[in-house]
């Protein structure tokens, strides 16, 4: 069995930051493996550890600077990694879910996986749509927001986490794409041995032509035209001063609101 896991490097923004045109100035940005993808990788590695002959391959769309992040997934037990990037992708600007799915589908066509796991969403742009778009492009079945997974005889029995503490129990025919929700498992830390081994695992680089994709077809229909800090709608009274002072003000407020012990 082969499991393909999509992983992405996401940007986290510092508490204080400056906007530079349509981006946040690099100085205020830290790169990390997308939180939801961490759970997807862990789920795949656990399936591998539970069964015979399971290969876990990760796929990423991103420049070479993301290699270090991708190696985190290898250090946690993925067998090898594929990364796709080229000038056309770089020039496309905001990659919409369809464009990303198109690229990922070309990799999936090469790899021919039985199961594809993605994160529910990425922490930076948060489209939450790439996994299901990918499934439909591949003609695979799918399930979005999966927080429990049981594989048996060509069927994935999943729980989909709905709103308000309700889960939907669904049987999904394989091959399928599942978008994985946090909490489905307990992602491991990479061991020192894992980190060492990750260095020698294969990380293949492709451009669009390698995948038989036409760079001219890569234009994203979405164009980001502004980036700004939203005006705060709220009118919070912010207590100022040392922690003792602000705590005293808050304590007085709470007492006024009738909160006492």
């Amino acid at each position, binding site marked *: 069995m082969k499991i393909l896991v999509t992983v992405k490097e996401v940007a986290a923004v510092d508490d204080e930051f400056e906007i530079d045109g349509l981006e946040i100035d690099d100085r205020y940005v830290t790169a990390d493996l997308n939180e939801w993808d961490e759970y997807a990788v862990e789920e795949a590695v656990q399936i591998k550890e539970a069964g015979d002959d399971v290969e876990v391959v990760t796929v990423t769309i991103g420049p070479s600077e993301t290699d270090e992040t991708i190696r985190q997934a290898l250090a946690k037990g993925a067998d090898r990694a594929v990364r796709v990037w080229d000038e056309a992708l770089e020039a496309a600007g*905001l990659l919409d879910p369809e464009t990303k799915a198109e690229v990922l589908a070309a990799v999936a066509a090469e790899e021919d996986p039985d199961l594809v796991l993605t994160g529910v969403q990425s922490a930076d742009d948060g489209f939450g749509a790439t996994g299901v778009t990918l499934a439909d492009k591949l003609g695979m079945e799918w399930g979005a927001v999966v927080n429990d997974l049981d594989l048996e005889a060509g069927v994935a029995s999943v729980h989909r986490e709905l709103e308000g503490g309700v889960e939907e129990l669904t049987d999904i025919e394989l091959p399928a794409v599942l978008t994985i929700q946090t909490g489905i498992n307990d992602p491991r830390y990479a061991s020192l041995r894992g980190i060492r081994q990750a260095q020698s695992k294969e990380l293949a680089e492709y451009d669009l032509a390698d995948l038989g994709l036409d760079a001219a077809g890569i234009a994203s229909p979405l164009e*980001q035209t502004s980036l700004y800090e939203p005006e705060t709608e709220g009118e919070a009274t912010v207590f100022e001063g040392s922690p003792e002072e*602000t705590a*005293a003000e808050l304590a007085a407020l709470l007492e006024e*609101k009738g909160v006492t012990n």
Partner: protein
Amino acid sequence: MSVLAIAEHRRGELRLVSLEQLAAGRDLVDDLGGELHTAVIGGDVETFGAKLNREGVDTVHTVDVGEEFNHDVYTQVVTQLAEEVEPTVLLMPNSVNGLDYAPAVANRLDRPLVTDVVGVDAEDGLTATRELYGSKVETTIDVHAEQAAVTVRPAEWPTIETDGDAAIEAFDATVDESAVRSTVKGFEEVGGGDVDITDADVLVSVGRGIEEEENLDIIYDLAAALDATVAGSRPLIDNGWLEKDRQVGQSGKVVTPDVYIAIGISGAVQHVAGMKGSETIVAINTDPNAPIFDIADYGIQDDLFEVVPALTERFR
């Protein structure tokens, strides 16, 4: 030119976002001209259809297929309906189920998809407003296409309460059963713990800012001093540091205490969905840009490890 909004229901209830979308749809139709259509698929379509007949809606399509949501059925039906109505903008909810079929529909119709929008405008081509980096910044996006698909963030638009005079039309969809490769077996309620956070007057709610499980002691001390109940954001529940039924938010509980103290919680939309109805909201967070301050009534922009013990001390 027209807009088509697809309603959502679960276990016999029309979900609120179905009506909120109509307001977003109305905004678009005001810009675009043309008609506002809405549709309900499955369940008690007659009752739902009547509820969707709100002011400004031109046509309600009812599609009588099955009881509950199934994404294979929805994908087929919405695709057929959109081919029939040919809306300039196809609206769907940015709910868990919306995200389980909207991308497939957009793909089949070959329309760009913009998800989780908090604003739309069609005066000069379609423009959508979205949030990035956990709501720290907002962005506007121009959609370069004649026709698009959009998912609408719940609780961003008001519901239209006035009844309308829409035409209610049954739509005859053809469902290819061989393409239905998923089966919904049922539902399960999460929970089973012994606290009811929805019942508490005062909630001390803790987020990822607490860093380590051991650090929770300062939160328990505060809760004890205030005679309050401890709740939390999702990462603490995912880590197993708090029981599942203490989770506040979209997938957790909706709470409305007199006082909600959010400690080290950024205020992600899915968290806010569960606590914005609290009477008084207090936020303690080092990040002055944290979105929690947008909905807080009172805030302290400082380190919780200093503020929380000092606050506890005041009640000893």
